[in-house]
């Protein structure tokens, strides 16, 4: 059977797209040609939210999404989204590869999703017309956020004016001054050409919300155990490929934005961390979530 997998990224060589294609190769080899995966990128099958719902009812086999749209569906997925939870990329990778990551993936099962893997999405930082050095510089800035309570609350805690806006309007918005800033990882700062509109990328690195690869439980339950294990291990193998590709992409994008005149600004992260208490109070509500946060913080 050929499984269908969705991705919203346009580039055919985007790290997550490449990773799922790699997973398909591995799976094909392991199963002796029984299984393959066809990736529909460019958002052909819908938005991330739509593909999640399709996976839930079994209309789609797999989808690769950011963890944010899962937040409303599966509570524990909020944990890796939390601001300043991971202190480095290594810490993030180690935590998600460990028992904490497994527990979060497992938690999606009750909602109809088989969590197969976490992929990297880098660290998100704020870019604006002016450099941001401490949290005081954010005060009153109109910052574009995704339509999500967590992101609104996160920017609000920094003292910014969170402005939800569709991704497609951000370029014009930054260029014309409708908004003062936006936040994203370096590759998105590059591919969206937002660096043409605003020049200062301040490394707040406020969140390392990862990407997820989800499989439909409806489809999954029809497969024999041996085949399920094959799919799981193929997904796990693709993670290393994605990470390698991601690091290359980040280095490449960094060079592009720098050549385009963008300046990378170092930030006093402690000043940001100090104001994040209310965000944790609001979103980390259950004992399980608190335990997960603690265990990630304790991961060395």
């Amino acid at each position: 059977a050929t499984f269908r997998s969705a991705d919203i990224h346009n580039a055919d060589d985007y790290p997550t797209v490449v990773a799922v294609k790699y997973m398909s190769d591995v799976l094909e080899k392991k199963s002796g040609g029984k299984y393959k995966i066809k990736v529909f990128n460019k958002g052909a099958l819908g938005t991330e939210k739509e593909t999640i719902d399709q996976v839930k009812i079994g209309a789609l086999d797999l989808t690769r999404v950011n963890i944010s749209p899962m937040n409303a569906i599966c509570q524990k997925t909020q944990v890796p989204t939390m601001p300043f939870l991971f202190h480095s990329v290594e810490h993030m990778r180690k935590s998600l590869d460990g028992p904490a990551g497994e527990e979060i993936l497992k938690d999606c099962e009750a909602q109809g999703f088989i969590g197969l893997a976490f992929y990297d999405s880098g660290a998100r930082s704020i870019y604006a017309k002016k450099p941001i050095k401490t949290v005081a510089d954010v005060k009153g800035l109109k910052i574009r956020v995704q339509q999500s309570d967590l992101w609104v609350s996160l920017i609000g805690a920094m003292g910014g004016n969170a402005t939800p806006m569709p991704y497609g309007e951000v370029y014009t918005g930054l260029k014309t001054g409708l908004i003062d800033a936006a936040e994203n990882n370096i590759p998105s700062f590059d591919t969206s050409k937002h660096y043409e509109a605003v020049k200062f990328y301040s490394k707040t690195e406020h969140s390392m919300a990862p990407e997820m690869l989800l499989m439909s439980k409806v489809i999954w339950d029809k497969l024999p155990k041996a085949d399920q294990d094959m799919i799981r291990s193929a997904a796990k193998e693709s993670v290393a490929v994605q990470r390698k590709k991601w690091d290359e992409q980040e280095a490449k994008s960094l060079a592009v934005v720098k050549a385009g005149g963008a300046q990378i600004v170092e930030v006093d992260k402690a000043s940001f961390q100090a104001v994040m208490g209310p965000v944790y109070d609001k979103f980390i509500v259950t004992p399980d979530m608190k335990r997960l946060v603690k265990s990630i913080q304790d991961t060395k």
Partner: protein
Amino acid sequence: MELTVLALSFTLLLIIGVPVAFSIGLASVATILAAGLPVAVVFQKMVGGMQIFSFLAIPFFVFAGELMLYGGIAERIVRFANSLVGHVRGGLGMSNVIGCTLFGGVAGSPLADVSAIGSVMIPLMKKEGYDADYAVNVTTHAALVGAIMPTSHNMIIFTLATSGIASVSVLSLILAGLVPAILLTLCNLGAAYYVAVKRGYPTRGAFPGWGEVMRAFGASLPGLLVVVIILVGILSGAFTATESASIAVAWALFITAVVYRTMSWKNFMTACAKACKTTGVVLLLIGISNAFGYFMALYEVPQLTGELMKSISSEPWVIFFMINVLLFILGTFLDMAATILICTPIFMPIAMQFGMDPVQFGIVMLINCALGLNTPPVGSVQFVGCAIGGISVGQVMRSILPFYSALGICLLLVTYVPAFSMWLPNLITK
């Protein structure tokens, strides 16, 4: 197999006369059953398609157009156009062209345009001794310009149809439409003059003087300002396209109710009700086309079409010509919004591969769709024009050729000379 089900059921439903939106919906359901996927996906795509923020600009432009239609803005624009060119040969035809173009600019849809200006101008022209077919052709062709003059809700529909292929900003598209709109207007004026001379229509009255022109301009200015508000609003960064459209609604209401004092309570309610019905009709079509688009992506229709076209020729001009012919044919059967939503994902990738800018493609697409509005079997603008003029579609074909050729020339220029559409957006947004 699934694609055959999709194409056959859609064509069959369309031919027996099921409304386009429902034909698409039922064909999608049939296809998804054939594919063995849950029917619920059709309805997910439908709601998803209706729910994109930028789509809010559509009800707003529709609403503003209805307010202007019922609020007496059309009459003032006609008076201004008449003072300017009413005295030349075929003068009423000329003022009709200018009036339609200006009103089409503010009101956003060819249909609102032909209803508003046509119901003032066509009877007037007939009374002055012009033939009904001439009066109708002048009006309906000038009304088409409304589709590419800013503000146009069809442009918003196009920007959304492009998502996932390229990112096209509403602003670039608005700017790209300006020069072709002026070109189209000049072509329309030329055609109107040509037929007037050929049929020996009389001249009437003398030039009323620049004082009168300025007075008439002043009276129509508040209405015309809608376009300026929208353009300045987006260009200055004060508002998004959607916010600008909502301000256009407030402005249209303010002008007609407070400045002109021509908006009665009854007319206001009628305008609101019409706007709601049109919004329902248009957004249903958009939503359900999203389901259609899902199948086209799933079965890779754009790639297949592209490969087929490339197998015929690798010359850009041949490819662009084929695209134009196909768009024109589809446009004669389908409504503008449906053509845009169905054809953009199919033809834009291949046009881009052969070097056409997405913004330029948008204008080519809009002109083709506009032509379809004046072409049987389904030409909604032509229907309305004929209804007002009291003639049949057959009768109107008598003098359509000069107008049609004028539009055709414009289409070719926009297709093969990128500067016509791209010069202004490149100048301002780069």
